[in-house]
């Protein structure tokens, strides 16, 4: 947060193609600590490809990718994780039937004792998981309950808390509010801003401009694999964002077209319907 001018993660003119399909072309992005960068875009705009490059699942073909000034060539999610880039996927990478604390430490278990007798430090893991969740303001009734008995929002928060606990500098959230109701989405948005206050760089992928505008500091809109908009919050209103997101000029044209073709018919139907009700 102290050095908010220097990005902790930077993509410059990054491109990626699959065969003859350009999934991503000349996309630049910088993520700063203590900021929420929102990536918006329609289905197929290249959001997923972009996160997969950032989180190490894909390699980029062109351009450069730097983390803390160092060129980044992660070949696996594990490498990205070691660089402090944690991704919370839509499916949350939680194992439904495992207890909350086992999920929390999955893949990074704490152990005690010398080798043949090395065992899980169950007491410590339960305590830490409980503490970290409380810090995020969520209190699970029983840290031993399977994760699939939690609500969607709670599960999201478990995944976020886990990423923060394991030293994430950059937190990538892939459509965290997509499958949630209004109230649950609010809960998740609150934790996104909590993560920002904790000094993390947050990349928030969504196709909901309203959610994005509530927490975002910088907005990036992708369209057909290219950068459509990249703008700080100060230069943008919610209306601008919604307009851009909804397709901007394309939508205007569509609106115009719809008005010309459908308006009379729709009107006629309505009038007829009202008459029927009236009589």
């Amino acid at each position, binding site marked *: 947060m102290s050095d908010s001018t220097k990005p902790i993660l930077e993509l410059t003119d990054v491109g990626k193609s699959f065969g003859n399909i350009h999934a991503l072309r000349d996309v630049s992005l910088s993520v700063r600590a203590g900021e929420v960068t929102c990536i918006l875009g329609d289905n197929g705009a290249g959001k997923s490809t972009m996160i997969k490059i950032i989180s190490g699942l894909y390699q980029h073909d062109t351009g450069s990718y730097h983390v803390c000034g160092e060129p980044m060539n992660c070949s696996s999610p594990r490498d990205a994780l070691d660089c402090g880039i944690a991704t919370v996927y839509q*499916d949350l990478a939680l194992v439904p039937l495992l207890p909350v604390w*086992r999920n929390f430490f999955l893949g990074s278990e704490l152990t005690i004792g010398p080798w043949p007798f090395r065992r899980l430090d169950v007491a410590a893991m339960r305590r830490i998981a409980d503490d970290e969740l409380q*810090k995020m303001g969520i209190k699970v009734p029983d840290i031993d309950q399977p994760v699939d*008995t939690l*609500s969607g929002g709670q599960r999201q928060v478990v995944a976020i808390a886990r990423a923060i606990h394991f030293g994430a500098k950059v937190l990538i959230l892939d459509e965290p509010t997509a499958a949630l109701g209004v*109230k649950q989405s609010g809960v998740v948005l609150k934790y996104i801003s909590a993560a920002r206050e904790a*000094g993390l760089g947050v990349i928030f992928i969504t196709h909901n401009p309203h959610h994005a505008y509530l927490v975002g500091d910088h907005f990036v809109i992708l369209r057909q694999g290219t950068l459509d908009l990249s703008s700080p919050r100060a230069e943008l209103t919610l209306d601008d964002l919604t307009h851009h997101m909804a397709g901007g000029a394309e939508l205007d044209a569509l609106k115009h077209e719809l008005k010309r073709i459908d308006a009379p018919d729709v009107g006629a139907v309505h009038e007829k319907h009202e008459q029927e009700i009236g009589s």
Partner: protein
Amino acid sequence: MATTKSPPRKPASPPSPETVPGGTPARVTQRSLARRFATRPEVGSLVGAVAVFALFFTVAVPFREFDSLSTVLYASSTIGIMAVGVSLLMIGGEFDLSAGVGVITSALAGGMFAYELSLNIWVAAALALGVSLLIGFLNGYLVVKTKLPSFLITLSMFLMLQGLNLAITRWVTGSVASPTISDMDGYASAQKVFSSTFTIGGVNVQITVLWWILFVALATWVLLRTKVGNWIYAAGGNADSARAVGVPVNYTKIGLFMTVAFMAWFVGMHNLFRFSTVQSGEGVGNELIYIAAAVIGGCALMGGWGTAIGAAIGALILGMAQQGVVYAGWNPDLFMFFIGATLLVAVVLNMWVRLRAQRR
């Protein structure tokens, strides 16, 4: 800039128990002890074990004697040792249909290595272990590399081993059984380890019962108290999620197939040193009994759920059934029917118990 500003290092809004995310803490109360007990994977099978015991205790007079108890335990132990490996593998989300003939493959290999190469029994046993582990590795490697269902891979392995068992035995020895090796170096000590009996309170107990208990204890410890155990549950529960957080899912699965192979070697050695010769056509069908034991013990068919103790109770039920049918004077052909019926009741009961107990 930010829409909600709050002091750093603190959640955006102070958490209070009334406004916990998910909205409704009051609706989610701690599940009662009885409920949590009832959701344990073993509970259904424990009830089943008591019921089966009561049944044979009532209808079969010889079943009530201590001697028959040791026979039941012995039958259970040979199923149970395999069920340890098979249940771990099943919790890890995979099957091994080659486990039944794998036992015989290992025993035949041990017998033929010892006899044909005039090796010390222990050297031959070590070579047989190598053969078993190689089969297990192949199963696991093919499953994780091809991403085909383990059902198909191990079915192929099962059929191939069945053929090889018969063909190689006939080719090497000219008969359908492995040569008798009871007069060879090291046989006595190997027999002590794999197939001896000892007496407790006037009852002869097979040493396999002790091994069985040891393996179940070890597997339980690994499952519940080690990293690897966590990985096994995660690999079976949701392999993609596990991989995303850095769990070596492929190594875990290959390791599990090799664990089954190790158990197959162990039971194979027991067979070899009990009878000193092995019939090459045996073992077919046993793989399903091991799987039945694991499922009756509460292991989920699709993985991610179950315990080694549950599988042990499942093996005990099958052992009681196997001997109980004989003691009750019923047609021994009914054993398979009994297993089928038990399995059906167990899976229905398990599902019912779990659904009821998980309802909040």
